[in-house]
């Protein structure tokens, strides 16, 4: 099977410092992959390299088709007079020249996409007035309407409460189930452990990747964090306990069902 995304030996330097060192991983069509790492670990840099915004110093990135992108947050003037539905429409034709005369077919596509992400209710509101979760839905619709093979999201859960997070994860799981490869970054793996089937874990410029169950193991995580991590199986769940210099000061707990 051809990969939807193939990253091989990717090295990226920014401001004279190597931020990513020989990062390699590949994702199959329909994979739901979490790109996990602490703040500053290079998640945004990796996504920008995949999009071609940042040139690597070594290695390569191969995409099977169009990549859709969801930036972390739009830096919006609240006065920006663009409605959510019109913003989704720009996903379809925003790169085209010429004045956009209204088209019924285009409008129908937009309505269908708004419905697919559950954004019909606020399609007429200005995008700057939406809540974090609503804005994420609209951004996802903007990216998906171009029918990408790969959807890249930069910390889509960062500004969301628990419930909105769970809703966005469920939406993205549906998207992946339809064959779109989803790669989303997060600094906290906790909310994603039950949803992602693949994980790319970044720390100190290096990556570990694989099926979630393979990566979330004591040896792998301890090596990446640089201190001891316990992965404990309790009943049918996995608990990750990270403590600086040992298991004493438990700092981080996450669970896999």
């Amino acid at each position, binding site marked *: 099977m051809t990969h939807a995304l193939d990253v091989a030996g990717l090295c990226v330097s920014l401001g004279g410092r190597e931020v990513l060192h020989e990062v390699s991983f590949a994702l199959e069509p329909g994979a739901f992959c979490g790109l996990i790492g602490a703040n500053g670990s290079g998640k945004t840099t990796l996504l920008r390299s995949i999009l071609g*915004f940042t040139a690597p110093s070594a290695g390569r990135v191969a995409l099977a088709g169009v990549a859709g992108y969801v930036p972390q947050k*739009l830096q919006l003037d609240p*006065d*920006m007079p*663009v409605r959510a539905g019109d913003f989704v429409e*720009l996903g379809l034709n*925003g*790169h085209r*020249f*010429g004045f956009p005369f209204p088209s019924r077919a285009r409008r129908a596509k937009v309505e269908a996409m708004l419905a697919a992400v559950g954004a019909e209710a606020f399609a007429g509101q200005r995008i700057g007035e939406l809540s974090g979760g609503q804005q994420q839905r609209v951004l996802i619709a903007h990216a998906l309407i171009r029918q990408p093979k790969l959807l890249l999201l930069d910390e889509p859960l960062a500004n969301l409460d628990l419930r909105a997070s769970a809703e966005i994860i469920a939406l993205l799981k549906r998207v992946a189930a339809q064959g779109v490869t989803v790669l989303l970054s997060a600094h906290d793996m906790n909310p994603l452990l039950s949803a992602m089937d693949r994980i790319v874990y970044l720390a100190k410029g290096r990556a570990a990747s694989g099926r979630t169950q393979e990566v979330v193991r004591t040896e792998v995580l301890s090596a990446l964090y640089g201190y001891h991590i316990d992965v404990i199986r309790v009943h049918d769940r996995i608990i990750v306990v990270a403590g600086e210099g040992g298991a004493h000061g438990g700092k981080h707990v996450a669970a896999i069902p």
Partner: protein
Amino acid sequence: MTLLQPGFLSSLPVQNALLIGAGAALLSGAAGVFTVLRGQSFAGHTLADVSSAGGALAYLLGISPLAGFFGLAVLGALGVEAAGERRAAGRDLAAGIVLGAGMGITALLLYLDVTLKGHGGAAVAVMFGALFAAPPGLGRAVALGALAGLAGLGLIYRPLLLATLDGELARADGVNTKLLGGAYLLLLALAVTLCAMAVGAILSTALLIGPAAAALRLARGPVAAMALAGLLGLGCAWGGIWLAYQSYGWTPGHVWPVSFFITALVLAVYAAAALARRG
């Protein structure tokens, strides 16, 4: 004292002025919406100030003021673009430095206008406008420039809107944001040039920003904002021209500066829009 001056519409300088005002208002209203949304008011003002050097040069060489103003505004746009700065703070800095250099050259050229050519009124005309004294063919040239500018703006409208919303997102969607930014800056140079024809280089920012900012407070979509900004600007320009014409009767023998009336109306429109939004 006559309250209403006769012959407003039949006066040739008035017709010329109305055409210049209309072209400047319609293009700068539409382009100004993006200037406001992209936070480029200062860049716009810089281009206007730099264009004044071209206005002064036009007096010196005896060429069309439109060509002089536009030529220098384009040079200013290239200067700002060459700085290649993406951060807002750095962009302001680059614009400020270009502005300073441009105004210095303006000072020299205006001095030469007076000393070499005896154009004593050049400074006031370049900086604050002299709409009723505009050359007869200027109205038509400004109208054509405005039409070309509006066509250009219509051409890049969608990518420009997307890039204004989020530059990275636009890039991911396949927009060449660098080229687009340059094209927009050229349109901005044209818009401020036309404004400078109407109200002078220094005051052109008022016509560029004021109606657009007012329209953004009232309109529901970007196209509506562009149209409304153009119409508000048109109202201010024509209203200002009419008031200036009437002022001949208030202080017999003297016409008050048109630019004063236009910018006063722009301020009033902006204040009214701000109040309407709050209320």
